């Protein structure tokens, strides 16, 4: 077996951290607030929804050092090995005073009670680094993971629009110190497996994907933690002990996205953000949908594979990928097998996955140019909400006749599931309003949705049926039938 390092190493602002006593469930937020007395980072919800704990995490990727805003409340400390953690205390202007983003927030009265403010500053800081002159749309998307209860956001958006007036990223500390931070992170990286523990709660960071396969095969009861956007809540909300836990968020080999003649192959460890450009490039109809998955911080953490592997009936990825005919590759040790994505979901809480086996890649075939697409999410609040209903439509029309139909829904059953009865009505039918109406009528044969706090069964069924009408309106009548995000 390879060498094992018993120490987590990362950079925190200007300091190098070397920690040996780290438990699987220890969070970055508690480490910052309790351990380091860096109290600028706040706890608002401890579930990754409010953004008050937003920090930046920088990591060396295939494309170099990349910083992203994440939620410290559900980010596990062990997962930070080899990273640069940047908190609000690190921000400063070139003159040592307020940072341009902070200056703009003060000038535009962007804070009232101030509790969400450090998190908002960090999200806007990340946006300003990427896009110093953002559009309102870009600002709204960047702030999907940040709640403010006081201001109504208008002054915060004004601040974001004006931040670059006070200076651009060129003089910023994360730019000027990029080379030294990169060197510092490279010096921390030794290519070994890392294993640490605290109170018996072991955290294992495999050296690479093959090492992960070996470790998981050997410890099939371990918790696999990728982005921790779900597992994080097991700890912060349910107080579960997750050790031993295998952390895989650092495995570049699991995050590769490849475009081939057959389509797109996405590593299961790719985050929503990492997969965004390739997926939207290949499937432009996913643009609106993709930006309605969670908030920016969670999209930077949560992974495509995690959204599939956890088997949730309300995950946003499965319905649209099932409609696109995606297949998953599962791996156990050195053994791989492949199956259609829909076949992975057996029943509520039950997936076709053996102990020690993991989702390695997802392959999405290149679309048929004759296929018409729809990807829609219905939720109580437009952004950063869990679906009441999510739907993927892929209907292929040849000479006015529907030759193929793949329609999948989330939120309508115990698993993400195809609407087989509705598909059967469509296949072979003329592509017209009537056919889609008949398919909608068949939907109760496919689904018996539940009522809960997100939506009633009646609403779920009605809205799912109405989406067939939307599909016709958009593709058959070229009528805009969806409230899209207004462009700036």
């Amino acid at each position, binding site marked *: 077996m390879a060498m094992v390092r018993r120490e987590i190493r990362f950079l925190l602002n200007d300091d190098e951290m070397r920690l040996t006593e780290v438990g699987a469930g220890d969070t970055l937020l508690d480490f910052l607030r309790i351990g380091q007395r860096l109290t600028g980072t706040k706890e608002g919800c401890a579930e990754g929804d409010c953004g008050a704990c937003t920090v930046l995490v920088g990591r060396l990727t295939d494309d170099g050092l990349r910083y992203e805003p994440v939620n410290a409340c559900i980010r596990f400390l062990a997962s930070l090995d080899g990273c640069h953690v940047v908190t609000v205390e690190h921000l400063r202007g070139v003159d040592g005073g307020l940072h341009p983003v902070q200056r703009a927030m003060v000038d535009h009265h962007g804070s009232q*009670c101030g509790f969400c403010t450090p998190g908002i500053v960090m999200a806007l800081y990340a946006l300003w680094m990427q896009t110093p002159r953002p559009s309102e749309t870009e600002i*709204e998307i960047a702030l999907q993971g940040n709640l403010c209860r006081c201001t109504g956001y208008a002054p915060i958006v004004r601040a974001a629009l004006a931040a670059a007036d006070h200076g651009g990223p060129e003089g910023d500390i994360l730019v000027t110190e990029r080379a030294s931070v990169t060197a510092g992170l490279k010096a921390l990286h030794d290519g070994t497996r890392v294993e640490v523990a605290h109170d018996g709660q072991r955290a294992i960071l495999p050296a690479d994907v093959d090492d992960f396969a070996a470790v998981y095969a050997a410890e099939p009861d371990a918790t696999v933690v990728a982005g921790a956007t779900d597992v994080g809540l097991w700890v912060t909300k349910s107080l579960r002990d997750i050790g031993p836990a295998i952390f895989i968020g650092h495995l570049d080999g699991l995050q590769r996205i490849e475009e081939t003649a057959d389509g797109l192959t996405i590593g299961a460890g790719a985050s929503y953000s990492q997969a965004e450009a390739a997926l939207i490039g290949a499937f432009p109809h996913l643009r609106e949908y993709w930006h309605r998955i969670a908030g920016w911080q969670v999209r930077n953490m949560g992974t495509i594979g995690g959204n599939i592997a956890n088997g949730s009936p309300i995950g946003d990825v499965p319905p649209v990928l099932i409609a696109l005919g995606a297949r998953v590759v599962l791996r156990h040790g050195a053994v791989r097998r492949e199956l259609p994505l829909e076949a992975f979901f057996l029943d509520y809480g039950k997936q076709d996955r053996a102990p020690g086996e993991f989702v390695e890649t997802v392959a999405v075939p290149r679309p048929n140019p004759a296929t018409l697409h729809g990807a829609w999410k219905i939720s109580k609040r437009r952004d950063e909400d869990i679906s009441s209903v999510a739907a993927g439509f892929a209907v292929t029309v040849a000479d006015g006749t529907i030759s193929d139909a793949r329609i999948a829904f989330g939120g309508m059953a115990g698993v993400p599931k195809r609407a087989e009865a509705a598909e059967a009505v469509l296949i072979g039918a003329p592509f017209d309003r009537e056919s889609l109406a008949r398919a909608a009528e068949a939907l109760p044969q496919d689904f018996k949705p539940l009522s809960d706090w997100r939506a009633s069964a009646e609403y779920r069924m009605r*809205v799912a049926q109405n989406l067939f009408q939307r599909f016709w309106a958009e593709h058959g009548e070229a009528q805009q039938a969806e*409230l899209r995000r207004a462009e700036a």
Partner: protein
Amino acid sequence: MSVKGAPHQDLAHDSAAKHVTGRADYTDDILESIGTLHAYLGLSEVAHGRITGMDLSEVLAAPGVVGVLTAADIPGANDISPTGTGDDPVFPAETVEFHGQPLFAVVAKSRDAARRAAARARVEIDPLPHVLDPIGAIEAGYPDVTAPLKLERGEVAAGLAGSAHRIKGRMAIGGQDHMYLEGHIAFAMPGEDEDVVVYSSTQHPSEAQHMVAHVLGVPSHSVVINVRRMGGGFGGKETQMNLFAAVAALAAKKWNRPVKIRPDRDQDMIATGKRHDFVADYEVGFDGEGRIEAVEGLFAARCGFSADLSGPVTDRALFHADNAYFYPHVRLRSRPMKTNTVSNTAFRGFGGPQGVIVAERMIEEIAYALGRDPLEIRKANFYRPGGDVTPYHQVVEDNILERIVGELEASSQYQARRQAILDDNAKGGILRRGIALTPVKFGISFTATWYNQAGALVHVYNDGSIMLNHGGTEMGQGLNIKVAQVVAEAFAVDIDRIKITRTTTEKVPNTSATAASSGSDLNGMAALDACEQIKARLVDFACEKWGVDATEVEFLPGRVKIGAEEIGFDDFIRQAYVARVQLSAAGFYKTPKIHWNRDKGQGRPFYYFAYGAACSEVSVDTLTGEYRVDRVDILHDVGRSLNPAVDRGQVEGGFIQGVGWLTSEELWWDGDGRLRTHAPSTYKIPLASDRPRIFNVALAEWSQNAERTIKRSKAVGEPPLMLGISVFEAISMAVASVADYRECPRLDAPATPERVLMAIERLRAER
């Protein structure tokens, strides 16, 4: 030339630079001393029942646990009812009254240990039948949790009978969680004798002080409550903090160690009260022109298991059930119903919004019935001379709505846009639009008249620096900067000279809650009184020393003019100190003119009214019920603003909070009485992308308070929340379009996409 930071200037929040750098300290950021313990609550998992056994042995055996607190550990009174009704125990001894009621606290060496230990309790409860909603409570014969109110004027039965048209309706109005970003927290340090000092995120330090003393069985002088700032309050920290302050203080005294209690977000939302849900039954009689003849209304509220503030909250719903409209004959009654849910409490507007939305619904009903533009009906019913008496017999003397609504109607181009929307909708597309212009008139003053008092303490140190303390609390609303602006002008010094300090019961006693939008009105006046006292002594000193008349002493920016001589402020203060002039004063203020006889339902409960109006346009997807707010124009009255930037922030933020209340924020209890929307993952407050892209907010710059308030300003915290009703009514219009506006849609609040779609489907089915 005025001083830097004088009233009416745009100034940033005094903590803005600290907010953006993370250097503003909240209670959880205070350095914990060695030995600090952490408490955590154990909650009931039954909505109603008798406690037959509470086995906490596993809790006590958990790692890191120091001990537990139950009802038996309370040396004083086991009661934290804010109005002395005795129905709000810290921990119940016998009967559980809601799912999520705190039953005990565990105290441990770390918060994590306390949280884990709390989950190990074994509590046996014999369930009793439970009721969750106000209508169910009425049907089950549940009691009013506090005395109902009736407001009556004229002959309502005759008025209704004589009306050309009558409409009866029912509207359910949802509650709202405060969702302040900083949750509840209290941190207590034991002192000598019976003393305890509590740092807490509370809007009402004096009440917390009295409650802690009451629970400990000690005099109030032994308890100090401190609060530097809150991470949001919105009413949720007016009475609800009492529980946490009490538990922290009890544990701190019991173990003689500092004790902090900070519930997680779920506990915070489950175990503390919210805005009251209401079911309102109304009947309105009107003539062919849409003029209201008579109104009868019954307002049943989900109050929860105890009275808390439900009396004044349901009273205020009735006080605002007229909103801006004259009802010639009226009878309004409240039913503050006991339910087996968390005890509902203050929330920005304090019942007023629930009254206002019913008034606006009645207007809409009339408009649809007569086929008229609802704005026309609104205007036809505004209070005006000859029709200016409210259902509580106060005369509306300061009405400026006609001007506000007229100006907004023009600036928002309401008429042209409404016509364009009607034309677009007539094309029959899937996406429909709606527009609505709604007003608000909001009564300012605590209806508990004795609450309308405030104190302040101002020290001028002999270097010329000034320390300002007042009884109000800072929760983000900018109270401290506004009061400091008043003090800056009073002494004619730059505001940088003034230090704003934490609120503490040691400096100003017997304060009222920072609530009812009254913070600046009350504390600004009290601070001014303190300044005037010190200034009077300084003038006397100057007259004596320089041998001038008082009229020859003038405070100019940064200096004092005495006769022909000018002296710098620092120098003048130094000389006054040497001459043994007292440079400190306690100021006081009580609101004049107000009186209220609740038994008769008559009086002048409000010193004045604040006004505003909003015009909102929305798009609605008629296939899914989803919607988007496209444009909002607001014209709001804050009198002569103390700080227009701060006030505009209150208007914008209050509006969006009101929109959240009426759209995406839904409280959902399951049949067992369990709240299932108890964190931001399930309870959805507005996001940046929910705000209107076009958002024109203006203050009515020509307005000044007709009453002699601080610098003729008006209260601003609550009134703008009700402007969010314009969004609700705009959604309603888009919904109504699917049936060509033939009827007023049955739409309850919050208008979630589900409720919107179901309202559309009902109209389609009836077509």
